[in-house]
């Protein structure tokens, strides 16, 4: 029985955890920029794998995990963005270079959740086929969604006034 076709079993959890923990953590640091938070979300990601493993055979564990992790991280960014927007109305503006990175995260948070996840997966180098399987979309639609996601992301990041 090969790993590729085996249904997910609890016994696989340790193996997957060992193999993918660092990749998941790195992906979360990349999105959130916060190691402590990435620690927490890594645990939460694997917690989901443990508690509610996918019913289907897990052919690409990393794609599945990074999809879950991207979702968790984007949710977090949305919450942070709302909270920070409330606070910055009262506070002074942060330093410019910090602002720059925050703008990227704010733009990610502004995307439709699935669009954001797909954009992150693509940026992390997953193929259309892997992305399609991970988010449950027809492979033929991936390009269309990515085109839309990147357009909206750019608008959110650079401002809607940007002309193509």
């Amino acid at each position, binding site marked *: 029985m090969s790993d590729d076709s085996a249904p997910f079993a609890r016994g696989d959890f340790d193996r997957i955890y060992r193999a993918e923990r660092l990749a998941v953590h790195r992906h979360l640091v990349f999105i959130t920029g916060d190691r402590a938070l990435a620690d927490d979300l890594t645990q939460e990601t694997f917690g989901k794998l443990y508690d509610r493993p996918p019913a289907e055979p897990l052919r690409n564990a990393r794609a599945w995990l990074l999809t879950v992790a991207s979702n968790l991280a984007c949710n977090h960014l949305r919450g942070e963005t709302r909270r920070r927007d409330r606070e910055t109305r009262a506070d002074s503006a942060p330093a410019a270079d*910090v602002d720059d990175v925050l703008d990227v995260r704010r733009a990610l948070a502004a995307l439709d959740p699935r669009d954001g996840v797909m954009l992150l997966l693509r940026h992390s180098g997953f193929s*259309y086929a892997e992305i399609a399987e991970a988010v449950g979309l027809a492979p033929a639609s991936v390009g269309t969604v990515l085109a839309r996601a990147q357009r909206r992301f750019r608008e959110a990041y650079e401002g809607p006034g940007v002309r193509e």
Partner: protein
Amino acid sequence: MCYDEGSLMAYLDGELTTEERVAIESHAARCAECGRSLETLAAIRAAAAEALDRLRQPAEVVPIRPARRTPRRLPWQRVAAAAAAVLVLASFALAPVRSAAASFLRIFRVQHIQTISISPEDLQAVSRTLSRGSGHVDLKTLGEAWVEGGSRAAKPVTLAQAQAAVDFPVKLPAGLGDPRITLQAAQTFKFKLKVNAVNEALRYYGSDRTFPRDVDGKVFEVRVPAIVLAQYDAQKQPVFAGQARSPELVVPDGVDPSQLRDVLLNLPFLPRNVRDQLAAVDDWQSTLLVPDFGGKARDIQIDGVPAVVMSPDSAARKARAEVGGDLPEHTTTVVWNGDGVVRAIAGGVTEEKAIELAKSCMR
């Protein structure tokens, strides 16, 4: 038939088969609307990638929560990146074949040649990361690097002198007239790493992998053997024929090459698609990787000898022009490996002509 955005994006992302790719290219060359869409999407794609790349910068330690800690300044972070880039080149681009005889040193030497697809955007992403590092370049902090042997400049020689200087037959292409021949003497590039400092830099860059402690103070060598280069100027564009023994990477006794490879593969600034391609090279200790920089590269057989032929496509040419370089109308490179010698024909000739020239070298 015009193409929808999804197909055009798949084209830009390199997700299409060669047939689909060619169909889109020839259509876009004729259809102004699709040409424009392609340009727009390429701009959107590049802008999104550049913005997301910002998250991969050292600035990523800036927490999204209100500042709890300030990022530490490493004056040598740029060196770290440069040193890492050199190591990547050393072990992947130059490299590889473990000699069966070498029990003390692991020696790598070329047996196969394979193309690796690195787009101009990939390069830009890496150089953005590298240029964003701040502070002074202080190699001493991370280790030492020095060159041994041979003067740096190639010197003009006669064919007889070139032949006397190398231990393999110098083979030149036929029908191009008399070449100017230069000889670059063999050189050995040596590196000695201070592992603690390097690892600290790696961690700062966001890498989870670090060099094993026992690498500290050991000497790594990249041996570049003598290179014979013939230049033919009688053509409209110059044509070059180069040949050399395979370069070698030598790592110290007791160092596990696969462990080093793991560190290098996990350098945070390697674009993921490049990393995946590197990771997929099975016989990595004997495979010379030839970057195609977004051009079209394919594996061919010339009289039964496996070779790689590359010719930049219009997109690669455009990208090169944008970064200040210019490619002549036909630029073809053919690289092959035979009897332990790596040979290449490169220059402003058509693919057919380049292959013909390569063939004439094999006789």
